[in-house]
């Protein structure tokens, strides 16, 4: 039954793609969106069925994919990711109904979008090396084409797509080697067989495969230093696509790391996981810092994706570390925390990206320095963005807090430890969590405060109007989930626990308390998000009531206090750049911002300034110090190599003569 639904999801997805290719332009958006929602709905149904029953959905056919065969097997672990992708896809497609983009309505884009969603749903179900790589690459190429949609309007799109293409191909190559290496040593390309036989595989093969998988999947998850494409490509994609990429596609990088590390390899030595924790910590800090200093709304969100995926990697690393040092119960808790964060990140980041898409469409820009005052002009979208921001800043009672709390608990309960690795890694993990937590709060105060509040910083922003209903409905679904999961995590926690158990084949008794609360079994105290939410609501009502009782007169609306000055313009407000400036100065050594002050004087005297322009820019340190050099080295090599074939037929023939001589010498 579930298998049929899985096939149905894929077929409806293909149907949607076909419809996108042939439908008349008038109907295209509607037809494609509705069909894709149906496909995602099928995917969601399969995932929920599998999560509930625990019976995997299996599809196998040799009639597809020559000499490899298509092999799908959706277990609970995969189902969790399918469910997440499906929910994000449904929201994004509802959003897409109202999203006005001529480019996204083109024949190609309409055809590719459903394919992308289908690939997102199929990746976690893939159960053989060939199938996995096929759908993985399909996902990569379809998302690449969708990133390209706006290439005519903005020149940055092409650059972003180029970065994305290169990084994703690099990652795919690493994955191919990792998976094929495992398949070769396990003598089968089925995941089940590999998992069963991987224990007998030589240690170097296991380690190589894991390291390559971390590289390959990490690049998809936006792991530093392979993240460079993410803050370029996610922002340049059209609204619904960037939501799908940042909320659903990056998760699959995490999926892959867990699937390979825990599922196929069944865990490994401590250094694997320390490596992962290190990379996670680096990603979290780097992403958070750049998000805090970004002024482009969607770029900020993209960097924050890197940050959150870093936290997830930290959790996975901690989980593996616990498992390898003999703490199976904590390992499970840490993994659950990481997975929970994946789910919640999808929910709030999806809502944020969709709201950001609305904002971009309504105001025509995503530059925070030009936005402002949107909450009054777009009350619903603005509120949804606020909810998402609060969730991502881990403010209770929204969902972000629950997963971060659980992760903190896992790290905390691993201490004190006699194991040196744990004793060093866990406190560092807590410190990273804490620092990113603070930076994220700052980031989203900036995003929401500068973007939505205050006065419009540009004339056009005054004209901004609320977007169509379906657009905020799409973001609203996810924002509602932020609140629902935040208050009632028990709705999702058992499913996540089952998923984590499935992939680690863990037999640990229930490590978490059941019911409304979240907590570690056997540990005193727990988190009561529902109660907390209720308490907050009650005390807000109480306080507001008291205020109302004390002061019944209407609030007087006056001009803002400007020290008595006559001229109080919107330009005097803090911008996103100035908001982040103190932080930029604090982390000057890491961010190394470039300043450029250009002063021109009046002709008569140098004492009078005619005009002054100040320009500041922050470049990604990895891009500047790593990738640029690599690119110029390749260019240098290319120019060098070009000198060899200079067009002389004699030289060409001489190659042959030399080869002939070598053959004769060696074989004669």
């Amino acid at each position, binding site marked *: 039954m579930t298998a049929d639904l899985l096939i149905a999801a894929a077929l409806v997805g293909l149907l949607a793609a076909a419809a996108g290719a042939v439908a008349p332009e008038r109907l295209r958006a509607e037809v494609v969106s509705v069909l894709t929602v149906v496909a995602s709905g099928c995917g969601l149904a399969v995932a929920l069925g599998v999560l509930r029953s625990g019976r995997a959905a299996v599809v196998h056919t040799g009639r597809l994919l020559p000499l490899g065969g298509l092999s799908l097997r959706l277990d609970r672990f995969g189902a969790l990711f399918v469910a997440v992708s499906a929910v994000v896809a449904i929201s994004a497609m509802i959003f897409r109904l109202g999203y006005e983009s001529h480019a996204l309505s083109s024949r190609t884009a309409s055809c590719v979008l459903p394919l992308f969603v289908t690939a997102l749903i199929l990746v976690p179900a893939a159960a053989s090396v060939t199938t996995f790589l096929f759908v993985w690459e399909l996902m990569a190429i379809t998302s690449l084409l969708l990133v390209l949609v706006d290439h005519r309007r903005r020149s940055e799109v092409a650059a972003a797509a180029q970065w994305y293409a290169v990084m994703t191909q690099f990652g795919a190559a690493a994955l191919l080697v990792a998976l094929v290496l495992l398949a070769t040593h396990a003598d089968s390309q089925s995941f089940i067989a590999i998992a069963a036989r991987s224990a007998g595989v030589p240690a170097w093969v296991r380690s190589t495969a894991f390291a390559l998988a971390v590289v390959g999947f990490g690049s998809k998850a936006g792991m530093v230093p392979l993240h460079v494409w993410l803050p370029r490509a996610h922002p340049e994609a059209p609204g619904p696509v960037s939501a799908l990429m940042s909320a659903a596609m990056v998760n699959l990088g995490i999926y892959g790391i867990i699937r390979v590390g825990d599922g196929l390899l069944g865990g490994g030595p401590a250094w694997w996981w320390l490596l992962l924790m290190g990379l996670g910590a680096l990603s979290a800090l780097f992403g958070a810092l750049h998000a805090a200093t970004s002024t482009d709304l969607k770029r900020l969100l993209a960097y924050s994706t890197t940050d959150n995926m870093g936290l997830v990697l930290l959790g996975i690393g901690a989980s593996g570390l616990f498992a390898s040092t003999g703490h199976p119960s904590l390992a499970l808790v840490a993994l659950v925390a990481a997975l929970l964060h994946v789910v919640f990140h999808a929910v709030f980041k999806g809502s944020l990206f969709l709201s950001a898409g609305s904002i971009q469409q309504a105001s025509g820009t995503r530059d925070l320095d030009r936005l402002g005052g949107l*909450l009054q002009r777009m009350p619903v979208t*603005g509120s949804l963005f606020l909810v998402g921001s609060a969730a991502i*800043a881990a403010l*209770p009672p929204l969902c972000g807090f629950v997963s971060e*709390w659980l992760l*903190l608990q896992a790290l*905390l*309960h691993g*201490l*004190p430890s006699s194991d040196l690795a744990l004793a060093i890694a866990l*406190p560092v993990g*807590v*410190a990273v969590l804490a*620092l990113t*937590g*603070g930076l994220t*709060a*700052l980031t989203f*105060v900036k995003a*929401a*405060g*500068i973007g*939505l*509040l*205050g*006065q419009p910083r540009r004339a056009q922003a005054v004209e901004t109007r609320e977007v169509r209903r379906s657009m905020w409905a799409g973001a609203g679904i996810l924002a509602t989930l932020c609140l629902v999961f935040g208050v009632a995590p028990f709705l999702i926690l058992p499913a996540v626990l089952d998923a984590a158990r499935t992939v680690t084949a863990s037999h640990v008794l229930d490590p978490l308390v059941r019911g409304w*609360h979240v907590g570690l079994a056997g*540990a*005193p105290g*727990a988190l*009561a998000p529902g*109660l*907390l939410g209720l*308490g907050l609501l009650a*005390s*807000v009502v*109480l*306080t507001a009531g008291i*205020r109302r009782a*004390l*002061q019944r*007169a209407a*609030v*007087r*609306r*006056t*001009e*803002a*206090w400007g*020290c008595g000055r006559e001229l*109080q313009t919107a330009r*005097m*407000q*803090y*911008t996103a750049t100035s*908001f982040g*400036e*103190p932080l930029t*100065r*604090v982390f000057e050594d890491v961010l190394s911002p470039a300043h450029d002050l250009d002063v021109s004087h009046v002709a008569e005297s140098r004492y009078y300034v005619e005009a002054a322009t100040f320009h500041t820019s922050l470049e990604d340190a990895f891009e500047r110090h790593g990738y640029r050099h690599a690119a110029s080295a390749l260019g240098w090599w290319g120019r060098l190599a070009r000198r060899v074939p200079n067009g002389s037929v004699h030289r060409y023939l001489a190659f042959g003569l030399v080869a002939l001589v070598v053959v004769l010498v060696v074989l004669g």
Partner: protein
Amino acid sequence: MTSAWPAPSVVAVSVLQVLGVVVGGPLLVGLMRKVRCRLEGRVGPPVHQPLLDLRKLARRERTRPDRASWIFSVVPVVLVATTLVIALVAPLLSTDPAFGWSADLFALIYLMLIGSVVLALGALDTGTAFGGMGASRAMTIGALSEPALLVAVLALSIPAHSSNVPTIVARSLAHPAWLATPQRLLSLVAFLIVIVAESGRLPVDNPSTHLELTMIHEAMILEYAGADLALIKLGESMRLIVLLALFADLFVPWGIATAPGVGHVVVGVVAIGAKVAALGVALAAFEVAVAKLRLFRVPELLAGAFVLAVLAVISALVVP
């Protein structure tokens, strides 16, 4: 997960805690102001002056900048409400308050964070230069002090194997030797620095400055008037007293009511009052003695706190 205490005691303790925080907060501020004035050679306003101010403000007109949204009006309410929740669940008087099992230290910190965040949002909502300036500075300092705070908390939680505050307090009482360990002392200092930074006291911020350009916290609330301002002032004083009370519980837990009974609770009230007052006096005295730091020296202070907290964790691992 219900309290082991009889219901009336629990209710009584809860009411006392909330009342204590609501009334004690302004009084603490008054006390600190008094101490300050005395040290400066003045008589100073009466200790209950902040309460008088609040009474007057509560009846005054509320204003709202014409471009601000509904967020602006919500901020004071949320600020007070979050602190009320903390006052309710935190073990200020007894080790087993209502919902004490849910009084997780991390949760309390994040509840406080809600207050900081909404204050900053409210400041940005005014659409003025001062609001943005204050919000930017406050959030930067907050972002840097949070890691120090969380790591310091971790250092406290490690020996207790829990981040539940009542549990930590109860275990500290059971093992007084913990209190003199290096990790305690180190995290104590870190905690103190963070309290100073979070509550906007000298040397991080001068709460009585009149110069907008040097303001951090005051700049954020320039636009609030009347009842809104009263709530904000109340909320801030509540945050301060809650922080100090938590600090007192975590580092000097003696006197807290560990069993139901009027006697215990009375002792608890007196003890926490005395401890908080002593801390307030010490803080005020310290404030008189130091000058405000330049804004960009503040991160150095917070980084110092962070290092101390990390050292605390490491020594917690070395000296279990």
